[in-house]
């Protein structure tokens, strides 16, 4: 690689440039004119895309980090080690971006540190804030060996190696807590959230689906980085993950169905509403089709088949989280929310920044090699 040459102006980079420019404009608008000017949020609809997607989806999509760390270190399945580092990196970037997104959404972002000193242990949000903060630290420590290696710093490397197992266990516990707590956030709105999605089991569903989408993200990003970096894909490993994902989907499906049946929520299926359509989409696209695909060995063990199943699971996951945090609340709020373009621009910029940072890390650090 030569440093004299300017980066090539590819199509992908052009798109990224457009997104980041729009994001920059939106950022200026947000911080000079306020939330009212930069978003379509209203008193009836106080949470929108920045919470629904950037935070609630973002944290879930970063669940691959703790899932794989548990697989490799706690369950001692060392053969998965080669894909651990990229997963930790994705998780770290994901959580860092969630924190940045929060700075956009909070009305007084300069008070973001308040939960550190102003405690309310009755608040789910308080617990999520602490867990995310601590877990971001854990992820930074889990990823830091890659950086220390780059600069050949032996002493911190040794120290981190010694505390790997406790660190991983703390990370898994913190993740279990806040992944489920993102569901608990909505336990407080029994009269507002549509019965398709309101359930006393929300924390359980959020946790299981986070594990499922975490695995899907590992498969997804392994494919992308293999393609981008021209590497061999670890197909047997990924196929094994595909099997695990099928089990998770199965467990989730059974629990979800039982819960919907028990609460009589399935009766709403007779009503031709937007909610019914979105619910059906979520279940069919995110659960039934990928589960069916993954049960077929010839699909699970091919690169394209497995990739398709992972994409479906991720899509279903996004649908679910957006339904719980946005669309499922519309009917009771008597209000319709659709994000302003500036909201979308900020969200896309977050995603774009994530890809950009991953790409840079993959180029300059030893992300794809086991220690």
């Amino acid at each position, binding site marked *: 690689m030569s440093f004299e040459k300017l980066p090539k102006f590819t199509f992908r980079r052009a798109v990224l440039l457009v997104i980041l420019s729009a994001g920059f404009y939106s950022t200026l608008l947000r911080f000079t004119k306020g939330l009212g000017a930069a978003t379509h949020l209203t008193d009836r609809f106080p949470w929108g895309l920045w919470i629904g997607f950037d935070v609630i989806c973002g944290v879930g999509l970063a669940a691959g980090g703790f899932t794989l760390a548990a697989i490799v270190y706690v369950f001692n399945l060392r053969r998965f080690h080669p894909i651990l580092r990229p997963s930790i990196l994705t998780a770290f970037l994901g959580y860092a971006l969630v924190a940045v997104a929060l700075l956009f959404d909070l009305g007084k972002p300069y008070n973001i540190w308040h939960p550190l000193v102003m405690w309310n242990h009755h608040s789910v949000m308080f617990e999520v804030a602490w867990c995310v903060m601590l877990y971001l630290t854990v992820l930074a420590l889990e990823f830091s060996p890659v950086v220390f290696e780059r600069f050949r710093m032996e002493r911190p490397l040794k120290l981190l190696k010694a505390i790997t197992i406790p660190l991983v266990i703390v990370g898994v516990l913190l993740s279990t807590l806040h992944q489920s707590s993102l569901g608990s956030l909505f*336990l407080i709105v029994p009269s507002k959230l549509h019965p398709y999605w309101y359930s006393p089991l929300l924390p359980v569903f959020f946790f299981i689906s986070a594990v499922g989408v975490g695995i899907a993200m590992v498969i997804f990003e392994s494919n992308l980085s293999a393609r981008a970096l021209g590497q061999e894909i670890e197909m047997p490993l990924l196929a094994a993950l595909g099997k695990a994902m099928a089990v998770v989907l199965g467990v989730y499906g059974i629990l979800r169905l039982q819960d919907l049946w028990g609460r009589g929520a399935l009766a709403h299926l007779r009503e031709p509403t937007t909610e019914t359509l979105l619910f059906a989409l979520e279940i069919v696209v995110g659960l039934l089709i990928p589960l069916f695909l993954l049960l077929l060995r010839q699909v699970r063990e091919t690169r394209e088949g497995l990739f398709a199943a992972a994409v479906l699971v991720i899509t279903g996951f996004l649908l679910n989280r957006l339904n719980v945090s946005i669309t499922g609340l519309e009917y009771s709020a008597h209000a319709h929310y659709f994000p302003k373009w500036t909201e979308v621009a900020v969200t896309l910029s977050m995603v774009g920044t994530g890809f950009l940072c991953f790409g840079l890390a993959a180029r300059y650090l030893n992300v794809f090699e086991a220690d």
Partner: protein
Amino acid sequence: MSKAILIDTTRCVDCQRCVVACKLVNGLLKASPSDFLTTDALRPLTPDTDLAMDESGEEELSARALNVVQSHGSVYVRRFCMHCQDPTCVSVCPVGAFRKTSAGPVVYAEERCMGCRYCMMACPFGIPRYEWNKVWAPRVKKCNMCAPRQAKGLKPACTEVCPVQAGIFGERGDLLREAQNRLRQEPAKYFQHIYGEQEVGGTSVLYLSAVPFDALGLPTNLPHDALPSYTYRVLSEIPNLVTLGGALLGGIWWITKRREDVSNAEKEDGDHP
């Protein structure tokens, strides 16, 4: 004992005095207060003060209107914070910006707030409003039952100015008895329910009505238990989850590690018999 407000919607005549009084004490009038002191001047003030309207053209609660009177047919309903006995906003706020005072009002400390708006999401009555257009320090806005006035021994301004006693201020227990009396004495006049006696564990604002409460735009699908228990039930399991989870994960690690050590040792034994 804590204070409360009893609203008898059968008495309200939509004079809007409570609305103006509320704006006066909360500094929410755009024009000078003297313009609004006569009854005749009250009606046209609504379009003048830059207020949010709902679909029917009625004034909606907003950051500039913490108390509004809405008409549902010929029934007028005053809407403002319900001051729950076990308030959802107090429970959900991550930084404890809301507090239920022993005197009754639920009050807000803007210097603690970081603007996450979980209170607005969670409030079962959809009351808290936000200063969306403030850039530097937007606040959550809602009625505080004139807590500063109460501290001085005064009534909330809205109940002070009501000419027909549609809203009265007093001890919650006394007001509940008063409401029960009215229901008993004129059973034909009232829909037999005191709204706020039991909804979400009880509120410090109570309503009486001639018609069912869903016709007044009040949520009628609320449980009788306080909502904070819904989340605290889960949150209080965290210490157990952490202890058990930690032990479980540590245990699994120990077993898998041991298994690996044993198989390594066996392999070595095989190499060097």
